[in-house]
C-alpha cells in the first residue's frame, strides 16, 4: 500500500458510557477505495466521522498528509472539510428547494465560485454520473437512485482528495445500488481521490480495493498466514 493520505490511529470515542470506538485505526491512500465493514452498531459511522473531522475523538489522532486534524481548531477543520473532502450519505442530503443542478453547484458557490461557472461544472458532473437530463428537476421529482447519483456529483464537484461515503446505497435496490457504486468508484479512481466507503453489504464492498473490519469499536488486523 502507498503512504496513506488520511490516517486514524488508536481512535477512541464514547457517547455517555458506551464506547463507540475503542482503539480503531485505518489509513487510506490517494486513489484507493477502502471499504469499512462490520455489523450494525459496531462503530463504522463514528469511525468515518472521526476520520472526516466531523466528530472529535476522545483519544487518538487523525492525520491528513502532514497535518494533524485532531490538533486543529474547529474553524480550520471545517475549512479543510469544505476544500478537501466530499461526502455521500444514505439519504436526505440534497436541498429540496433547489434544482438538481443548483444542488451540485452549491459547494462551489459556497466556495465563492460565480453562478455561471459553478453551474457549468455542475452540469459536467451530472453528465458524468449520467443524470444530466435531471438538471432542472427538484430532488423530490427524481427517483432514489437518480437522487443518489446527483448526491455523488455534488460530493465530487469540488474535486475532493478524500470522499467519505456512509452506506451510499443503503436506500437503493440492487441494480441502482450497483450503478451508483460503479459510477462513484470509477470517477473517484479517475480523479485520484481516496474513498472511505462504509457499508455492511459485501456486494457493495466488492467495489473497493480492500476492506477494514470493525467490530465492537475496534478494527481487526488481517490474519497473517
Amino acid at each position, binding site marked *: 500500500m502507498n503512504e496513506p493520505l488520511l490516517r486514524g490511529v488508536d481512535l477512541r470515542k464514547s457517547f455517555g458510557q458506551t464506547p463507540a470506538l475503542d482503539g480503531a485505526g485505518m489509513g487510506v491512500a490517494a486513489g484507493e477505495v477502502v471499504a469499512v465493514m462490520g*455489523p450494525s452498531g459496531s462503530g463504522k459511522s463514528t469511525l468515518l466521522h472521526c476520520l472526516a473531522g466531523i466528530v472529535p475523538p476522545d483519544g487518538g489522532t487523525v492525520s491528513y498528509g502532514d497535518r494533524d486534524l485532531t490538533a486543529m481548531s474547529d474553524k480550520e477543520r471545517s475549512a479543510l472539510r469544505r476544500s478537501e473532502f466530499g461526502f455521500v450519505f444514505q439519504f436526505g442530503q440534497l436541498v429540496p428547494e433547489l434544482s438538481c443542478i443548483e444542488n451540485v453547484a452549491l459547494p462551489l458557490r459556497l466556495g465563492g465560485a460565480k453562478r455561471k461557472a459553478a453551474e457549468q461544472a455542475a452540469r459536467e458532473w451530472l453528465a458524468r454520473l449520467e443524470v444530466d437530463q435531471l438538471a432542472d428537476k427538484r430532488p423530490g421529482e427524481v427517483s432514489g437512485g437518480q437522487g443518489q447519483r446527483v448526491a455523488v456529483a455534488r460530493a465530487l464537484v469540488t474535486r475532493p482528495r478524500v470522499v467519505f461515503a456512509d452506506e451510499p446505497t443503503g436506500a437503493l435496490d440492487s441494480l441502482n445500488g450497483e450503478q451508483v457504486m*460503479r459510477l462513484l468508484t470509477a470517477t473517484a479512481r479517475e480523479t485520484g481521490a481516496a474513498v472511505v466507503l462504509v457499508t455492511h*453489504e*459485501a*456486494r457493495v*464492498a*466488492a*467495489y*473497493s*480495493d480492500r*476492506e477494514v*473490519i470493525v*467490530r465492537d469499536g475496534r478494527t*481487526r488486523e*488481517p*490474519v497473517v*498466514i
Partner: protein
Amino acid sequence: MSIGHALLGLLETGPRHGYDLKRVYDERFGQDRPLAYGQVYSTLSRLLRNGLVEERGVEAGGGPDRKRYAITDAGVTDVSSWLVTPEKPEIYLQSALYTKVVLALMSGRDAEDVLDAQRRAHLGAMRELTQRKQRGDLADQLICDHALFHLEADLRWLELTTARLADLGKEVMP
C-alpha cells in the same frame, strides 16, 4: 447443465453445422468452459439416435463437419419440457468451515481468525467477479451476479456465526 438440451435449444433458432453450434454455445454459455468438438459430435449423434434432431443438407465430401442438423418436433417438445423443469435448488452445507470454527473454539484458538480469513478470501473472489462484471457485457454481468449473490450468502453466514461465537464456544467447550 444438460448440454444436449442447450444444443437443442440453439437449434430451435435454425439448422446449424456442428462447428457453428459449438461457436454459438461458447459465445453465449461457454464463459470459462468451452465445449470440446468431440463432445459436440457425440451429443449430436445421441440426439440423432433419439430422434430429437435430423440431418439436413449434407454437403458433398463426408466427415462430421459437413452435416447440418435441424431440430425435430420431438426435439421441440423435449426443449419445452426441459425449460419449465426447475433445477434442483442447491443446498450448500458449509461443513468444512463449521468444523474449523468448532475445532478452533475447542482448542482455545481465536475462531474469529478462522472466519476473518474466510471473509477475506470470499471478498477477494467477489472483487474479481465485480471487476469482470464491469468489463463484460450483459451476459457476463448476469453470470457474475449469480456467483456474487451466492458468495454474499456465505458471507452472511460468516457474519451470523461471528456474532454467535460466544454462544457456540459455551456449547462445544468440554
